[in-house]
């Protein structure tokens, strides 16, 4: 009986889907309805989940699922055309029309809806997309919830028609009519047993983060559009030893290589997607080592717990880092 190491390749579900419908539902917002070519069931997901649209070489973008988990044969994403973006939304708007095929990876979920009796949802602009299935679920579970939804103007705000069914649980705040979201009035005094879910542009997220500092730990759940601004690193990165426990490998991480690059160069398969510490795909269990967290996924408590790290961006302050890989 010969024994060699079992090579294990780990990857996310990836498949070609057909655009069944591409509908412009607000200024610069297109909603894509995606299905398998044979309309087979797609992988199950829960509110807050997102998928990658693989739009070309080096052009992969994440979009929240905004359909219902009760409809397993279709996925729906809403995409805002952002002229200053890196080209992803432009490609979606110009190239994806009814009948076209798109490569899709996922779903994954780093913005899960945790069970609670009360929720406060805050959405800015296209950040409404992950919130839609969340409020459907909160409503079904008879939770006490509110949504504050801000946008530039009514015409730019997607899904107002779908939100109408919820009556006064939803507060729509078009900036040109009512000004900015009044966060002070909704977040000024901490509410007991309430979870806050927020998705939108960075300005809104940092403001909400600030207001929630006085709320009980674990209250705030938010999702960013792009990497959180990082403090500039004063010193140059140093090298450290990397031990992959399950694989039985000891490697060296030089200053100019990421942990992920070194893992992959050694032939060990590890999940990764965005490569900038925002999508959470490469989260890896830390066995030992003082991690230098540089991601936008883990909160301060989680970073301090030192149990998980995003190997695409985070490094190590101690001479050795041991991972469960």
């Amino acid at each position, binding site marked *: *009986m010969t024994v060699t190491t079992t090579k294990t390749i780990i990857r996310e579900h990836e498949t070609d889907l057909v655009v069944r419908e591409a509908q412009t539902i607000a200024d610069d917002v297109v909603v894509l309805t995606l299905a398998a070519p044979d309309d087979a069931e797609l992988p*199950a997901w829960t509110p807050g989940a997102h998928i990658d649209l693989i739009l070309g070489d080096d052009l992969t973008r*994440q979009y929240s699922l905004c359909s219902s988990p009760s409809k397993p044969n279709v996925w729906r994403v809403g995409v805002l055309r952002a002229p200053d973006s890196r080209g992803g939304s432009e490609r979606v708007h110009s190239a994806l029309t009814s009948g076209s095929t798109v490569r899709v990876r996922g779903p994954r979920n*780093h*913005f899960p809806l945790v*069970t*609670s009796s009360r929720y406060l949802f805050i959405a800015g602009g296209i950040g409404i997309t992950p919130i839609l299935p969340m409020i459907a679920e909160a409503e*079904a579970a008879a939770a006490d919830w509110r949504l504050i939804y801000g946008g530039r103007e009514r015409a730019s705000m997607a899904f107002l028609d779908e939100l109408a069914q919820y009556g006064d649980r939803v507060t729509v705040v078009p900036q040109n009519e009512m000004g900015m979201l009044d966060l002070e009035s909704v977040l000024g005094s901490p509410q007991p047993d309430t979870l806050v879910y927020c998705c939108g542009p960075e300005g809104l997220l940092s403001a909400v*983060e600030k207001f929630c500092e006085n709320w009980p730990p674990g209250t705030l759940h938010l999702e960013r559009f792009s990497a959180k601004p990082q403090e500039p690193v004063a010193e140059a990165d140093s090298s450290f030893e990397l031990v992959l426990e399950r694989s039985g490998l000891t490697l060296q991480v030089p200053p100019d290589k990421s942990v992920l690059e070194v893992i992959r160069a050694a032939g060990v398969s590890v999940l990764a997607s965005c490569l900038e510490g925002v*999508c959470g795909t490469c989260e890896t269990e830390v066995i030992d080592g003082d991690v230098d967290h540089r991601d936008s996924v883990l909160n301060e408590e989680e970073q301090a717990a030192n149990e998980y790290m995003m190997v695409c961006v985070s490094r190590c302050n101690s001479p050795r880092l041991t991972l469960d890989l």
Partner: protein
Amino acid sequence: MSLDVSTRSRLPRVHPRNCWYMLATSEEVGREPLGRRALDTGVVLYRTTDGTPVALEDRCAHRPYPLSLGHIEGDNIVSGYTGFVYDAQGFCVHVPTQSEIPVGARVPAFPVHEDGVFVWAWLGEPALAALRPPPATPWLSDPGWATLGDVWETEADVLLLHENFADITHVAVVDPFIAPPVLRSSPPPLEVEVTETTVSFSRTYEPAPIPAWQAELLELPADAEHVQHEHGAFVTPGLWVDRWDVRVESAPNETKIHTFRFTHALTPISSGRTRHAWRVSRNFALGEQAGRALLPIFTDYYRRVQRILETMQDVLDADGPRKEINVSADAAALQVRKIIRNMVADETGARFRGARSTGAARAH
């Protein structure tokens, strides 16, 4: 009408509740009340006059006596001690001593799904059942497939069963007779695929002989070599669906794929105790004679697995858990653990290691 009562002490573990779990086979549920335990909850199952399955909490609202020890009257169930009568939605509709129904007299009713083979129930947040379609296992009732199997209780936590199904390397060790010979050779690369809620693994083996008993069924020479493919899928915390394909060149330019599909419906009864319904379906040798030959082979194998898992549970109960050494091939099992852990954390209001304040980014 038996009641499952846990008699063994075990480490406290929590299982996801927002999931469809198999409570009984369709034949088991009829016009007599059937008492079952799942997720530390007593459930009584019966059918209304039109055949619709009903699942209620198995405890009269008046006195702590199981409804499963009562009887069915029309669409209602009558407590065998208090005489309280409950309808199929769990509302009390009659009490023996007064004409008024006490306010709030009801027992919880659980959403039920029947697929013709199994009766599934949702013991989590009732409103979410409609938002989580039950998994489909159409091959179990498809005439193109012949299916055999059994259901029993295993005195081991469901997590041990998940870990067992997440890697089939042990099959060759546990039962050399049933194991395809390729499992004893150096295995080809294992591909593990994950989504938010599922994990699957697969690998394709170079041409090799198949087990003697399978060659006999397929009327193939015992030493003939065939490409074989394994695939295993953690569909939900209550269901694994696995497959073993044998490719046979039946004629020049014609390949037939002979497939075994393995369906494992797993239901945590309590911590350390699991109901395990297994089905082995095949799309070849559909006759009853083949079924009679295969049933003892698979029963013997799954009984062996059951004894091993129960022994592991005994070790855990006696000595407690320890940090275990994992290997590269455990990737699927570790992903399964992660999904289950996150589900439990979301349900209990504490996302794993405390609620997150940040999440993934999207590039809108």
